[in-house]
């Protein structure tokens, strides 16, 4: 995807692919919203950077088996769907579409869920 195409489709460039290390979340700003971007192998995921239970950035938590954990109370969320896997969170977190053009990472401004 070229930069022009990305903008047309409602995506913004958030970082270079090289900025992301496996399983290490990065907080980025997408149109004023904090989003946690995570690279898992060859895939990159983006979720709203706030636990659905309390006011805590998920990007400060650990990533394991394609889930991201809120460090305060231990709720985990599936990076693919945003679903809350264990308590205390019960609501999913919004998931954002991600596009790659080889070197750059683009995130959609509207969540898919």
């Amino acid at each position: 995807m070229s930069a022009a195409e990305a903008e047309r489709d409602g995506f913004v460039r958030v970082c270079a692919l090289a900025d992301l290390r496996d399983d290490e979340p990065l907080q980025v700003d997408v149109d004023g919203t904090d989003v946690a971007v995570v690279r898992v192998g060859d895939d990159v995921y983006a979720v709203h950077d706030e636990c659905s239970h309390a006011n805590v950035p998920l990007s400060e938590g650990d990533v394991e088996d394609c889930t991201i954990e809120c460090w305060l109370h231990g709720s985990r969320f599936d990076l693919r769907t945003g679903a809350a896997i264990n308590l205390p969170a019960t609501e999913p977190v919004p998931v954002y579409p991600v596009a790659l053009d080889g070197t750059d990472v683009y995130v959609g401004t509207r969540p898919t869920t």
Partner: protein
Amino acid sequence: MSTLSTAVETAPVELVASHLHPVGTFDLDAHPMPSGREEVWRFTPLKRLRGLLDGAASDAHLRWKVDAPEQVTTSRLSTEQVQALGVVPPVDRPAALAVANAGGAVLIDIPAETELDDPVVVHLSGDSADDLVWGHVVLRTGRHAKATVVFEHTGSARYAASTSVLVGDGAQLELASLQLWDDDAVHAGHVGITVGRDARVRSISASLGGDLVRLVETAEYAGPGGQVEMYGLYFVDAEQHIEHRLFVDHNQPRTRSNVDYRGALQGTGAHSVWIGDVLIRKVAEGIETYESNRNLVLTDGCRADSVPNLEIETGEIVGAGHASTTGRFDDEQLFYLQSRGVAEADARRLVVHGFFADIIRRLGVADIEARLLAAVEDELELTVGRPRIPTEVLT
């Protein structure tokens, strides 16, 4: 004299170790930037305060228009003059920043022994949520004065305010604060009330508009026998955050307080927060207090946080209690009204009106009561449609 006995003699007897109630100070350094995980900030989406925690200088102002009887005077005070009056210091960072950045306060002065025939209405309005406004207001009601004062907020702004209310001995003050903001306004602040001996204060807060409203109201007593009533209503729509934090410090004997806040929520992401706290200090014998919060959840996807607290350091009191309820429409009330031939939409409207009218009628200013009821009606239009019964009949 030994070191130990010195320490015992100088330790403040009334020092209370508690995270529940705010401790005010004019020292900005004592109000650090919150992370969002502090007990007092954990319900608030900090980003949506949009700069009210940062404290950037700004000379933007709200438009002021004061309708007041001729006995009432307004003047400017320096920050030092305000502190010298012995007002309650700001209890949170937005209010402390407001004091620091406002460059002085507006004093509204109701002289002692004055009984006002008409209410004082302060109209405050802003043009745009791009404007960052720091406000500092002192309202002084003299000894044995009797007055009604209404602050009305309209339009839009990012507004942080510190409001100090001094109520003289034996005075009677009816105070109302109406948050009728546009959808994008942000409003945070602290109203600190000092109640004189045998004085009586009734404070009503109505929060209907704004993207985020977070108001802290505190009351303490300057002598025995004072009485405080804090009433509130809020109507929270989708993605709106409305937060009220109340604190009554019973620091004098034979004082009374009563807190009653009611809210309705509708739409996904509507979030209300109500935190009530009453501290009954050791000296506060013979006091009586009650606080209550009721939330009516009209649709799915809303969230109401409601936390009443009581800190009791003496049992030599008349009474202390609190209550909190959060729920949807009472099916039995709806069924009863429908069984009398009232259509479901009208029945829902009647229940909500009954819920709020009970608070609104305590205001005692007819045209503002009517405006608030009309505002509630406008809110209800979103979920129950327009009334077929004229509003006048309901009041």
